[in-house]
């Protein structure tokens, strides 16, 4: 670890980053537990990908637009989405901006330019290219970021989006959060090459980065994003981490793997981050403990708060299909709610 002199802005940025990671981890465990108790319907744990997401988020500006995916909890938190927004989505209550229509983990938060997540893997990527095209056409300075898993690189949409992004030279940053698994399929069976090398096939730059290390992520992404922002064309970043949890609360990973990385291991992104803070003399055990305790307090409080929020009205489940409901839907809903 290089012992450069840090500005106080940098120091607080790193603390903010660590805090977001801890919040993400704490919230994650809270939700997984709540799901076991039947208080939450479903969830896709994000543990292990905190550094990837926070490091990426650090490199972005407010004006940038995110097509994220279902594990991007730490990214959302670091980017400034209120924790309630995440919990309300998980609960699908009346304060959920998606109005309880989507499964848990399919977040949306316009306040931080985070587009509502669909389930079909990879299918946001062509949208990201389209948004980036709009930014370029209007000469805006934002970049568009698309995050996705290693499994997503096998999808049709990945190929088409990468090719079109390169052909149209639009400001889009593709970030593959390679956590080693697509449900039960290890990345070695997903494809016969390293993911960042796939960029070559499109005449695009491909970058490999340690996704367990938020500082590496931050630096690498900052350089890449700045290049994209200044008209350098799209880029593919492969961030390698490890899916420390199950694929989802419906998944039983013991069927197909031994958990190679456990919480507290040297590869745990939180352990690495802690070490970075200490090595850089930004924080000590006390600070770390304080952040963790504070995170636990916040998560518990927010969770309790959100659990009290009533569900949305049933009718909201059948609205906003169009700008104005069709007569068919009006009739059908009349019958349903009658």
């Amino acid at each position, binding site marked *: 670890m290089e012992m450069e002199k840090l500005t106080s802005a940098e120091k607080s940025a790193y603390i903010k980053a660590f805090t977001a990671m801890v919040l993400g981890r704490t919230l994650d465990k809270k939700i997984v537990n709540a799901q076991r108790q039947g208080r939450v319907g479903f969830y896709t744990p994000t543990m292990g990908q905190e550094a990837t997401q926070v490091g990426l988020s650090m490199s972005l500006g407010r004006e940038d637009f995110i097509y994220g995916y279902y594990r991007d909890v730490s990214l959302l938190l670091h980017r400034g989405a209120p924790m309630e927004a995440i919990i309300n989505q998980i609960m699908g209550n009346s304060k959920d901006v998606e109005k309880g229509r989507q499964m848990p983990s399919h977040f949306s938060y316009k306040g931080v330019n985070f587009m509502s997540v669909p389930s079909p893997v990879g299918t946001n990527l062509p*949208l990201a290219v389209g948004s980036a095209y709009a930014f370029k056409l209007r000469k805006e300075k934002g970049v568009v970021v698309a995050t996705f898993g290693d499994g997503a690189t096998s999808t049709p949409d990945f190929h088409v989006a990468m090719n079109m992004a390169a052909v149209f030279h639009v400001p889009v940053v593709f970030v593959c959060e390679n956590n080693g698994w697509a449900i039960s399929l290890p990345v070695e069976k997903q494809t016969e090459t390293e993911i960042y090398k796939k960029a070559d096939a499109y005449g695009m730059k491909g970058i490999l980065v340690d996704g367990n290390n938020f500082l590496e992520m931050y630096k690498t992404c900052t350089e890449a994003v700045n290049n994209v922002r200044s008209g350098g064309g799209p880029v593919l970043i492969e961030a390698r981490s490890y899916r420390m949890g199950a694929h989802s609360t419906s998944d039983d990973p013991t069927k197909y793997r031994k958990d190679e990385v456990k919480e507290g291991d040297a590869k745990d992104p939180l352990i690495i981050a802690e070490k970075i803070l200490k090595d850089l003399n930004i924080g000590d055990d006390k600070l770390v403990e304080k952040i963790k305790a504070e995170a636990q307090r916040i998560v518990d409080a927010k969770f309790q708060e959100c659990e009290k929020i009533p569900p949305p009205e049933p009718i909201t489940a059948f609205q906003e299909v169009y700008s104005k409901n069709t007569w068919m839907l009006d009739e059908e809903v009349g019958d349903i709610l009658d």
Partner: protein
Amino acid sequence: MVQALNRALNDIMAKNPSVVILGEDVGVDGGVFRVTDGLISKFGPERVIDTPLAEIGIVGMSIGMAISGLRPIPEIQFQDFIYTAMDQIINQMAKIRYRSGGEYTCPVVLRAPYGGGVKGGLYHSQSGETYFAHTAGLIVVTPSTPTDAIGLLYSAIDGNDPVIFLEPKRLYRSVKEDVPDNVPKVPIGKAKIIREGDELSIITYGPMVPTVVSTVQKNNINADVIDLRTLVPMDRDAIIGSVKKTGRVVIVHEAPRTLGLGSEIAALVAERAIDSLLAPVIRVTGPDSPFPYRYEDYYVPNEKRIMKAIKRVTEEA
């Protein structure tokens, strides 16, 4: 109709700088049917975009453009090739507004030539309206005249919902019409009663309209002829109103019969006008088979088959 569409696109692009066109060969070549001819030289390659060969990308990029404030009008070269983009249409385009709680919208106007008429065989002649009409979240329209093509395109681009704009390629060059200078918008969801009559209701749309009209004229049939123009949401009142008056229904479309649009029309009638019905509801449609290269004329409903159906419903007690 090609010229009418071209004129409307010219107008729309001139008026609204957020409108972009994208697709295969839509730029330099002007589109394989020439609908986008000349647009690139007027509006530049940034707004009239020749894309690589991938319908997923054409549709997917359009959705992203719409989310980010543009007004894309993508073209699918032949509707038959839209199916690689079906996931983008069903799972993204149709669900953006709903799933985001209304925070994001998706006003894409997706143009696609459909149906027979160019001796294109099974991959250049399909009528896939059912796939779109069954997908909640999409508006589906199809014009049968050049003027309607303009009027429907204006409405489509002015709305805030995704629109599947199906162009009957059979009518691209066959229908001649004096198009007025100022074409009014054709409202979405409103059918056109082309002819009025008392003995039966013939319900049709798009490519089959001229065939139905000429059959009715030639044979002096005393029928309501309804051109749906919008397939979703369908003009229930026009259909049911007419059926209540005549008591007899013939539905004509080119798409295969099973779960073709005719089945929904028949179901609406069976649900809402059963008391008025004096005869079975007859569908004259393409058969449940792929579209053949040879014998296109056998596949597509023609005067003979339409007359047989008319006779059947009118001769019934």
